[in-house]
């Protein structure tokens, strides 16, 4: 059996936020509540990047955040999927023209999936994670 298939049955997600307006983060937590219940698919929120299989990045990345993000990506045990959540993380969103933007996530680390929306709805989030799972298992 290939690694992706094994991984796709149990995805532990780690949540990284750099300069978001905090709305996308609330939606991530929403996806874990009884209404959407991501644990059905074996998805669990963990507190340490060392346990994570998937990193959810929200917010346009600012200068301080960029070095942290790169560092976290480097120390994380691979295989690791990176998902950019919200318009900010995908493209810069409404913060795009501002002076402290350090660019969308994919300028810093490779991204496996983009979930647009401002904020991204939990349904979109689940859909995105399912797509990552599919991508991992092929």
């Amino acid at each position: 059996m290939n690694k992706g298939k094994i991984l796709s049955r149990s995805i532990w997600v780690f949540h990284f936020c750099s300069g978001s307006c905090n709305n996308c983060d609330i939606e991530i937590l929403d996806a874990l509540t009884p209404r959407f219940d991501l644990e059905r698919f074996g998805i669990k929120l963990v507190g340490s990047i060392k346990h994570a299989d998937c990193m959810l990045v929200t917010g346009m990345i600012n200068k301080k955040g960029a070095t942290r993000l790169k560092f976290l990506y480097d120390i994380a045990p691979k295989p690791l999927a990176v998902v950019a959540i919200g318009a900010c993380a995908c493209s810069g969103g409404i913060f795009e023209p501002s002076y402290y933007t350090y660019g969308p996530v994919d300028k810093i680390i490779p991204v496996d999936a983009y979930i647009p929306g401002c904020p991204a709805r939990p349904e979109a989030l689940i859909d995105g994670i399912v797509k990552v799972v599919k991508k991992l298992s092929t």
Partner: protein
Amino acid sequence: MILFYYLVFPGFLATFILGGIASWIERKLTARIQARVGPPFLQPFYDIRKLFIKEVTIPENSVRSIFMASPIISFASVSIVATIVGLNLVNPNYSFNGDLIVCVYLLLIPSLCLILGSGAAGNPLSSIGASREMKLVLSYELAFWTCLAVPMIKTNEIRLISLMEFQAQNGAIASSLSGIIAFIITIICMQAKLGKVPFDIPEAETELAGGAYIEYSGPLLGFFKITQYMMLVILPVFLLQIFWGPINSWVSILKYLVLLVVIILLENTNPRLKIKQAVKTLWFGLFPVAVVSIILAVLGL
């Protein structure tokens, strides 16, 4: 033959599978309490399988040997307890005098390994986790040992199989006054030993981000997870053998499930204590009660 007992039944493999099922029951019930659907049946095994294909990362400033060895030692010692406790049920010929004390000592080793491993990880959060675990061990061990003295006094035995024989003739130890007090206190200490919610202070997902486990990844974390699964079976069965025996019929499985549900309910209805509160409760709240139960036991109640 010993190797078979150790690795397959009733040692590592059987306990691991039962532990996975117990862990699923725990997660499913928790989900149902929170009005969620909960994970699929094989989820604990998926988690372990996944952890074993992940990369191992070792922090730069860690003490490599201790960091790597402690999960494996904790896993190995728990397998020994599983073998001893399990053999008492399937093949009593192998029991030896004093196995109760050996078991309690071996059950302490996972906590010690966690302290060592997280202390060696070279991460400040992990060190806080280690120090909290240390305080927690100091606080619950006292009450735990004191309570274990009750069945020893009542039966004059330190052998699990004789304890069970005694209970087969005279009824469960937990049916006496001192026995039931000691049993309840050991259940609370068991919660601390398992690292479940009122006492999940060293792990503290929300404040320490995994605490003692923070630097562990891949197979090393997997070994700790397996240890946790196995403890979820061994500890309740061990307590059943001591306090709520005899274990010989299908009713015993029901008894185990009752204990498991008690663990889960305690976990879901309590907030996390601060380490200060935990030490206070265990030393000044529960320990005196445990001493009272010993006195009652000596008086023959």
